[in-house]
């Protein structure tokens, strides 16, 4: 069986990777401390209150991490304008025919697990596929929900202007009860997202073997050589994004890619 040639392609720039891991860590810490705050563990002790402060510490970690989460998110938004095309905000919007087709493709092949008769290697996205992009938009909205409700609940504990910017959320939802409820429920959606996200990363790495997992550490993915523009014997102009390629350019292959 003929072997494939792959090229190392730089996809995730350093700021994207740093964002990803800080974000992941923050979500982990925030979810754990959040659940502890919601339902603190039982401690039976005859200590005086003045001798310990563990619950205060847990809350402090939660609040401090929330700030890290928030500013990390701001930096990612900045990078959506400064970074490469895989980091760009434009990569997340599904507003073109090609991108809709990519959504359908991913749903058919990766979610419903059908097999393609004819393989088009450019159906495999280099950056995010469009379904993943949509899930990151959902995650972004979820993060905004947590930022708005979280800082709204926190605003009264703080003199700083930043949390106060969100104080209007409390009257909007009617009171702290409702805000807390939203904040608590949204946490579960982070958990659902994480479960699916991690699974799908493994899934792609396992089935496509392009370094999906390691790409978030090193930044590189492995892309079939015939997708690159200046590869000898493959002079046709091709772009990395499936959405930007023309169907006529498709090299028809009957074999499964990789």
């Amino acid at each position, binding site marked *: 069986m003929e072997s494939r040639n792959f090229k190392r392609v730089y996809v995730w720039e350093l700021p994207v990777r740093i964002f990803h891991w800080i974000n992941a860590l923050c979500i982990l810490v925030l979810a754990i401390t959040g659940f502890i705050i919601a339902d603190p563990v039982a*401690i039976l002790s005859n200590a005086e209150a003045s*001798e310990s402060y563990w619950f*205060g510490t847990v809350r402090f970690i939660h609040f401090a991490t929330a700030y890290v989460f928030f500013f990390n998110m701001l930096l990612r938004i900045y990078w959506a304008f400064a970074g490469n095309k895989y980091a760009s905000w434009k990569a997340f919007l599904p507003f073109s025919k090609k991108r809709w087709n990519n959504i359908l493709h991913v749903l058919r092949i990766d979610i419903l697990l059908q097999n393609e008769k004819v393989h088009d290697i450019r159906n495999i996205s280099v950056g995010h596929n469009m379904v993943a992009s949509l899930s990151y938009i959902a995650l972004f909205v979820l993060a905004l929900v947590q930022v708005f409700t979280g800082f709204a609940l926190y605003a009264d504990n703080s003199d700083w202007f930043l949390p106060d910017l969100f*104080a209007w959320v409390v*009257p909007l939802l009617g*009171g*702290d009860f*409702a805000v807390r409820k939203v904040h608590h429920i949204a946490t*579960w959606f982070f958990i659902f997202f994480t479960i699916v996200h991690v*699974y799908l990363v493994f899934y792609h790495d396992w089935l496509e073997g392009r370094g999906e997992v390691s790409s978030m550490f090193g930044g590189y993915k492995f892309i079939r050589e015939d997708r690159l523009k200046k590869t000898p014997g493959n002079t046709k102009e091709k772009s990395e994004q499936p959405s930007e390629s023309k169907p006529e350019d498709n090299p028809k292959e009957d074999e499964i890619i990789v």
Partner: protein
Amino acid sequence: MATKTDTRETYYESIIKQGYSRRDFMKFATYIAAYMGVETSMIGQVVKSLETTYRVPVIWEHFQECTCCSESFIRSDHPIVSDIILNKISLDYTLTLMAASGHQAEAAKHETMEKYHGDYILCVEGSVPMANDGYCCIAGRSARELLLESAKGAKAIIAWGSCASNGCVQAAYPNPTEATPIHKIIKDKPIIRVPGCPPIGEVMAGIIVHMITFDRLPELDGLGRPKAFYAKRVHDSCYRRPYYDAGLFAESFDDENAKEGYCLYKVGCRGPMTYNACGTIRWNNGVSFPIQSGHGCIGCSEEDFWDNGPFYERLTSLGGFGIESSADTIGKVAAGVLAGGIAAHAIAANVSKRKELKDRNSRGRDNEKQLDD
């Protein structure tokens, strides 16, 4: 009580007429200034305006309610408060306490509404049923109609208690009468919301005195509540707070921790989400407040506190999923279902894509054999 007087008198005059001494009056002014949260240097101003301001007419409407607000009010700390407010603020109309009844009472109300159009304060106790006018009628007229009528000429409206400011128990799910708080019906008047079931008597007195001495509304927060009393959570002024920060909680009401006076957070205390002055002003002339008496705050001054039960748990119950289901139970079940689905998907993927995997695998093996090592 509380019938209309034609000659207007100042608050001071009526207090003295009631048989109080000037000394009593000065004490009262000092108390109330402290409750209102103004500086001591302002006591003079309070005294002065009580001496010179004419009594402001008040119409006090009762709709869907239990009268706990009135009860709380007449039990406020200093007798002078209820005396001047109820007898002498010239309370022109209140079903519960006025001497007049029937046509006489209605006539007194209408006279005030006409004579002091634009000047009187409208106090509302209770929510208004919007589902059917017949659910709450007084003198043959519906609550909604009465509210719209008396609100028209009011200078400002005070929504007493959780009913008038949030809907309270009548508005709890499924809210059969469509009990509606005042600010959702009247949009064109300044409205002070004084939630609580009931609000603390001194808070009520403080708000009224603030309005008559300074002739303007007290400073309000984003929800229209006076900041002097609702700027802090019960939790922020709770004397059990050190236990909270230390993570020392009562697990049940009869355990050793409860006896030690540990924080009641885990037995459902809503103090951390509830804005009220209970921790500082306390109840029944400052004797105690629920947490001091060993019971968590139930959040009576917060919107929908009835629907955010059970009172003795911290879980978030979700309407529409059955009574026992909390957000966490649903979350755990959903996460389990998700994990199961993923396991099934992973197996199905390996079956469906077996050719792809096999080809790739054999290519990898071939390459491995050709390694030059």
